[in-house]
């Protein structure tokens, strides 16, 4: 199975993301990377949990004052829906439907960009209304680092998927780029997984007290 081989929907292998040794290696290597990222985010979560509400002056904003349901719900929905759209894109990839895959990847990117937009608005709101900044307190430093690192990962993921889409727009699917799309999609799911914990631990637990 040569990587440059042209396929039809009928001859396209069942698991294109694992059809070559290179693909299998990328696949495994990326899952291992996600294992390491799990530990990385766990360390950030741990830091946040121990520094939550640790402010130098009791009159400063605490978690209870800052977080609100509507905004966090919107952000969560945007990211969760973008996860299912990326699954749909992979479904089309398995069926050798390149244009449909590209379309659903584009939707994923747009939803992700929307998520980042809400986060920027949210941070701006905290800074201007509550003077809750990165340097104002340990709580602020921990919050912006944890949520900010996640946002940074989202931004990186968007650039990654966009790059793949643009680079391969003239080529169609083949065994060289199929594993690349699959790995990018795994990354996207992982950041959604991290967000599930962020909205639970930071926002929901923050609002509960």
């Amino acid at each position: 199975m040569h990587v440059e081989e042209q396929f039809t929907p009928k001859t396209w292998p069942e698991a294109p993301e694992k059809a070559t040794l290179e693909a299998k290696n990328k696949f495994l290597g990326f899952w291992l990377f996600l294992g390491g990222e799990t530990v990385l985010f766990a360390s950030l979560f741990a830091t946040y949990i121990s520094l939550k509400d640790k402010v130098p002056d009791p009159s400063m904003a605490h978690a209870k004052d800052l977080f609100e349901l509507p905004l966090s719900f919107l952000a969560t929905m945007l990211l969760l829906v973008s996860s299912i759209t990326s699954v749909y894109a992979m479904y089309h990839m398995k069926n050798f439907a390149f244009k449909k895959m590209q379309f659903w990847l584009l939707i994923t990117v747009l939803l992700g960009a929307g998520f980042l937009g809400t986060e920027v608005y949210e941070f701006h709101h905290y800074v201007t209304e509550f003077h809750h900044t990165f340097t104002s307190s340990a709580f602020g430093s921990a919050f912006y680092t944890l949520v900010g690192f996640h946002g940074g990962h989202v931004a990186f993921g968007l650039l990654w998927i966009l790059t793949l889409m643009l680079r391969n727009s003239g080529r169609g699917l083949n065994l060289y780029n199929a594993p690349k799309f699959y790995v990018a999609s795994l990354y996207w799911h992982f950041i959604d997984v991290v967000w599930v914990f962020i909205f639970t631990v930071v926002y929901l637990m923050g609002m509960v007290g």
Partner: protein
Amino acid sequence: MGGINFLVTIINMRAPGMTYMRMPMFTWTTFVTSALILFAFPPLTVGLFLMTFDRMFGAQFFDVAGGGNTIIWEHLFWIFGHPEVYILILPAFGIFSEIIPVFSRKRLFGYSSMVFATVLIGFLGFMVWAHHMFTVGLGNVANAIFAIATMTIAVPTGMKIFNWLFTMWGGNLKFTTPMLWSVAFIPSFLMGGVTGVMLAAAPADYQYHDTYFVVAHFHYVIVGGVVFAILAGTQFYWPKMFGTMLNEVLGKITFWTFLIGFHLTFFIQHFLGLMGMPRRIWKFLPNQGLDTGNLISSVGAAFMAFGVIVMLINIIITTVQNKRVGNDPWGDGRTLEWAIPSPPPFYNFKQLPLVRGVDTWWIEKMEGKKELTPAEPLGDIHMPDASILPVVISGGLFIAAFGALYHGDKGNTWGLPVLIIGIGIALLGMLIRSVKDYHGFHIHKEELLEDDKDKGVKA
């Protein structure tokens, strides 16, 4: 990245017939070490980021006035720091597990238990980090838990020591330089290990903490373990890497002077520590009772320096003389690497070998074969493309680190731009690497046949 690379290679790319339990011990230790690397470095990364944010951007993670807490740093650092020492020692164990069977002409005793012990050490390594924090005030319960967990690591380590001893027992021993290092490793590392158990007793540690007793302990395990392994491995693998053989006489001189120097330097430090000499103080008043001990230590250091210089001379002489050696210069190689030329061709194996058991090459030799049994006919080999981009990406991060380190020192302002430029180079490198096509290339059958005029073994 290095960890992931080794893990994927070991999991996905083993030769036909090589099950996990037929891998050489060095491969097993590399496997467990790589898993440790994968999981231990992220907490360090986080800790370093937090500290950099505090220094560069005024964050309050470790500033008590802003609500921060310095214990966070200690936990993050030692969650990395303890697995790190197992990252250091497990490959050393692997090297000794290769050398000892070769020069005992006997297979490794207790292979399965060695594998089990290695995995257990790796796992337990993540459970004990707070033994670096006994005096911080975590409380009696926490201290007790970590103390006991630490002592349990002595068990699988002891298993390994016994297995090495049983390998040598009854074997046809040949005391070449690598074997001398291995034999010296056992008591030296053991001494470091037992002082480790002493330190693990949390109440006793209140006395040892921050004294030279600790310094003596870790130098015994690191020098007696890791450095001996590096020196042994250098001598052992030199012919395989470079095609020449280091001089045995000079090697033995290095060994004896380094060994004596090492013990002179660090044994006395146990007592210096018990007498109360603290760590991290650069100058002491005279007549504190510490002068003689430190002098002996320094003499030992001179011995070690001498040994190392002799080794460098050895390397220079060997390189200049350039007497080439064959595939299996030690004569008793047991594993696959000794079946191919020294140094190996860049594609390593002309034909993938068929692995029939542990110590694959030994099996073939005992059956009288001159070459490995191949698993495939001679054909084109597909090789990956080379690329400078990974070096560019790491170079970018290297530059960025300098920006972060020096930002704000003595009022300089170039720190932040250098940081940004460095990260930019790294990201650009990643972009190009993703966008550029890397299909690899083929080495054709004809070129392989040309190589040392060998027709290839018929599969």
